[in-house]
Structures are given as structure tokens and as C-alpha cells.
């Protein structure tokens, strides 16, 4: 029958597309890992394990870059989760529907603001302010504040969408008992709140670890261990973006190693989150 042949072709085409799409990540990881392997030959593993990143004088220690990446991500996550949880609770639980709808739209739009625009704003507005306290102002603190502003809507949208999954009937029943919204939250909202926070902060953490543009513009890009929040730092992603243009030989291989480390950390976090999270959902941000 003609139907059957057309349907078989349809299945082959869609399944092939599915396999190609699913394979993109594997190819990406394999290519980056393959090129990073060259770094184990030259500059060599012991060089990569050093504590100085100074390619011009042959120092390829990744430690300060890894530390910079983790330091920025940790502080960013702290701010973004507190602010995102508050905004998500306000929109998804506390505010009257009409105000909440407007604010929700605002958060969705904010979640789409490009990182380079936040970075530009950080460089021209926030950095000078922080520079008064710790000149020149491009620093760990600036990077984390701007990144938190960038990622906060993601956390908020995630918390909001989890809270909204609580059935209206359950909410009305709790409201009818005369309990305050907070008591109602304690009664039926804690589990969705936690779920939204876990999903949102995982996404935010992955993006904070992998973000490049904000870092380039406001982190100061000095490859060192920062001694305080006012010190500049360089991250894995920042080093790749800044040095890729002129690197060659061992330096180039080391940059691929940085890429492999960044990719491995982010993939590990996302896979862990998928295993912990259990159910998967689509977050529009």
C-alpha cells in the first residue's frame, strides 16, 4: 500500500533527524575532548596542574581560572537564588492575579535580555559605582552582580511555573480556611517551591559557569586568585575568548583543555540535575 511506504519514509526521516539532534552533544564533546588531549602532550599534565596561568612565559596552570569560574558562579548563584525565589514567590503565590500577570511578562522579557547587553550596562553603570569602593571596579563582585541580574529571571520563572502547577482547587481550599498565604504555602506549596528552586538554580548555575560576555566586560580578566570581592579575575570561558585569537601550539592546546574542563563541569551538573530532578519540564527561558 502507498500509505505504508510513505509512512515508513516519514518514520525514517523523523527518526534520523532525532538521532542527528541527539548526537550533536556527543560530537561536540568528542571533538573538544580530542583537541584537548593534545594539551596532555604539550604543555603536559603537570604544567596544567600548576598554579599560574601566564602563557606568554610558558605557565599553563589552570587553577586560577578554575577558581575564578567557581568563585563567580558561587556568588552569582547565592544572589540569583535569593532574588529569584522572592520574585517567583511574589508572582506565583502572593500577588493578586492581575499584577502577577504583568510582572510575569516582565520577567519573561527580562529573561531574554542578551548577556552582552547586561555586560554593557555593567561596564558603563555598575563598574564605576563599585570602582569608588574598589578601583577600577572591574571585579569578582561586579561580575557576580551583573550575572545575578542576568540569571535571576530564570530562577524566578522556574519557581513561578512550579508554584502555578499547584491545582487551583487546592489553593482555594486552603484560602477558604482563612490561613495567610504563607501558612498556605507551608501547607501545600513547599514541594513545588523546592522543585522550582532546584530546576531554576541548576539552570542558573550552568549558565553562570559557562557565561562569557559578562565576564569579559566586567570581571577585569586578570588571571589570579582574587583575595577579595573587589579583585579582578579571569574565568575559563574568559581566557578562551580573550586568547583564542592569537594562541598557537601548546597555548592553543591548553585553551582547548580549558574548553573541555568548562564543558565537563557544566555537563556533569546538568546530568546530575536530570538524575535528581526525575521529571523533565520545559522552561521557557
Amino acid at each position, binding site marked *: 500500500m502507498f500509505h505504508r511506504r510513505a509512512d515508513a519514509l516519514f518514520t525514517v526521516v523523523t527518526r534520523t533527524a532525532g538521532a542527528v539532534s*541527539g548526537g550533536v552533544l556527543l560530537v561536540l564533546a568528542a571533538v573538544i575532548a580530542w583537541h584537548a588531549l593534545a594539551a596532555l602532550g604539550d604543555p603536559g599534565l603537570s604544567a596544567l596542574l600548576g598554579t599560574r596561568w601566564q602563557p606568554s612565559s610558558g605557565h599553563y596552570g589552570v587553577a586560577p581560572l578554575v577558581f575564578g569560574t567557581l568563585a563567580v558562579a558561587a556568588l552569582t548563584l547565592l544572589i540569583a537564588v535569593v532574588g529569584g525565589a522572592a520574585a517567583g514567590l511574589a508572582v506565583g503565590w502572593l500577588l493578586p492575579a492581575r499584577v502577577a500577570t504583568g510582572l510575569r511578562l516582565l520577567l519573561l522579557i527580562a529573561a531574554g535580555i*542578551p548577556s552582552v547587553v547586561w555586560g*554593557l*550596562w555593567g561596564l558603563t553603570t555598575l563598574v564605576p559605582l563599585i570602582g569608588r569602593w574598589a578601583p577600577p571596579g572591574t571585579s569578582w563582585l561586579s561580575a557576580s552582580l551583573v550575572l545575578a541580574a542576568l540569571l535571576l529571571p530564570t530562577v524566578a520563572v522556574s519557581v513561578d511555573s512550579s508554584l502555578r502547577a499547584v491545582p487551583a482547587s487546592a489553593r482555594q481550599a486552603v484560602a477558604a480556611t482563612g490561613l495567610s498565604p504563607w*501558612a498556605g504555602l507551608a501547607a501545600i506549596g513547599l514541594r513545588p517551591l523546592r522543585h522550582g528552586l532546584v530546576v531554576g538554580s541548576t539552570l542558573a548555575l550552568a549558565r553562570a559557569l559557562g557565561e562569557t560576555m559578562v565576564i569579559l566586560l566586567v570581571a577585569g580578566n586578570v588571571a589570579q586568585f582574587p583575595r577579595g570581592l573587589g579583585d579582578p579575575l579571569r574565568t575559563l570561558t574568559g581566557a578562551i575568548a580573550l586568547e583564542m585569537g592569537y594562541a598557537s601550539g601548546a597555548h592553543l592546546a591548553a585553551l582547548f583543555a580549558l574548553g573541555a574542563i568548562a564543558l565537563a563541569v557544566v555537563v556533569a551538573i546538568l546530568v546530575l540535575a536530570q538524575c535528581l530532578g526525575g521529571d523533565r519540564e520545559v522552561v521557557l527561558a
Partner: protein
Amino acid sequence: MPEHRLIHWRWRSTLANATVFALTAVVVAILAWLVIDLLRSAWPRLSWNLLTEDPRRAGRAGGLAPILVATAGVLTVCLAVVVPLGLATAIALAEARGRWANMVRASLDVLAGAPSIVVGLFGLLIFGDALGLGYSLASGGLTLAMMVLPVVVRLGEAALRAVPAELPATAAALGLSRTSCWLRLIIPTALPGLLAALALGVGRALAETAALLFTAGASERMPESLADPGRVLAVHIYELAMNVAGGEASAAASAVVLLAILTASQALGLAAIARSRRSRPS
């Protein structure tokens, strides 16, 4: 409940409300701060000529014409890959059950979170070097496609799944083939949701910067074909802010243009979602 416990609870409730609303107000204030700041510093540079002229003095003066052309070129290549591949994948995932589909979904979800600079490295190695595209709009568009694909597939799948199950069941009972059921029935029904998925994908594509630095390049000359390098809007903002002294006003003006395009595309997507929700009895 004893009187004093009740009062205590109320007081705590008020405090919690105050904290949450204050934090929310700060979030909204920062957004307003960003927008007002950008508009204020972009103001002297905003005019229709901005869209039609070539940049002068490294972008400090003049317009964005080649930048907008490069952005459109990269976006076109990206969508030429993502639309067919993404739609077919979304159909496969909406149809399939079990391990295979879950693995593809998991893989795409992780790809969506991959650091964009690393995807850019891949693009440089594979599209730029191995395929010989060098720094070009084509190389940038293909790299971008890798980043946009997960968004379009996952949201597209959700849109396809939202089509009521009676529809394909009825069609099958009437003897319609599976292929025509998908092409004539399910896809047209899910079209608003699919367009919304595409709009959000376009948003992600326009926002992307790091993946394009070493694939599409940063040349501000007018690209003459997809094989030429070109500087997209987001990269232009970065170059002006970072590498051009006195480029802040132009950077802000470019950011305003980018935000305007983004807001328009997202508004179209959200409107499509809203319309599909209204038209479907639930």
C-alpha cells in the same frame, strides 16, 4: 490557637511579605535602571539613519547597515538548518516513547546548557577549519544552529503534544495515513505553538555573542555572500564596549536596536501562545 501565637504568626507573615515584595521591587528597579540607562546614553545616536548607513570611525559614528545584514545572514543560515531538523526531531520525540526518546531529550537539554564559547570553539574547528568555511556567516549560522536547536525541539515537542489525542485517533479511524495526519492535521493545529517555539529560538540566536566571535568573525565590512565574514549585532555591542574608546553611545544605541528586535520577536511568540490557548477549549 492561643491569641499570642496568632499575633506572632501574623507578624511573621507581614515581615515575610515585606521582604519578598522589597526584593521583587529591587528586581524590577534594576530592570528599569538598565532600560532607562541604555535609552539615555543611546539617545543622541538614535535615528533612522542608524539602520541604513555604514559605520564610521570604528562604529563611533554612522550606522549599522552591514551589521544588520550580517545578523540577518547568520540568522537565515541558522534557521535553514534548525527549522527542518528541529521540526522533524520534535515529531520523532512526540511520537516515540521509551529510552531512545528520553536519551535524545536528555542530550538536547544538556546541549542547551553547554557554554556558548565552547560551542564556538567547535564551530571554529569543524565548520571553519574542517569544512573550510573560515570566518563566515555560514560558519556562524551553523554554529548558532547547534545552540538554537534544543530550544526549538523541546518547545516544538511540547506544542505538538498539546494537540488533543482524539484528533490523530479520529484521523486514523477515517483511514488517513500517519504522514498526512502529521502534515495536514497535527502540524497545522499546533502551528501557533510551533511559531512560538521558533520565536524563542530566534531570540536565543539574536542574543548569542560568544559562539560567533570565532566563527562569523568581527569584520564590520558589508558581507557580500554567506561565505564572507560579518559582525552580528551582539558582537558589535561587545566590540564597541570593549575595544573602541568612546564607543559607549554607539554600543547603547546598538543594544536598543537589538532589544527592540528581540522584544518584537518574543511578543510575537507570546501572542501566538496566547492565541493558541484561547482558541483551544480546555
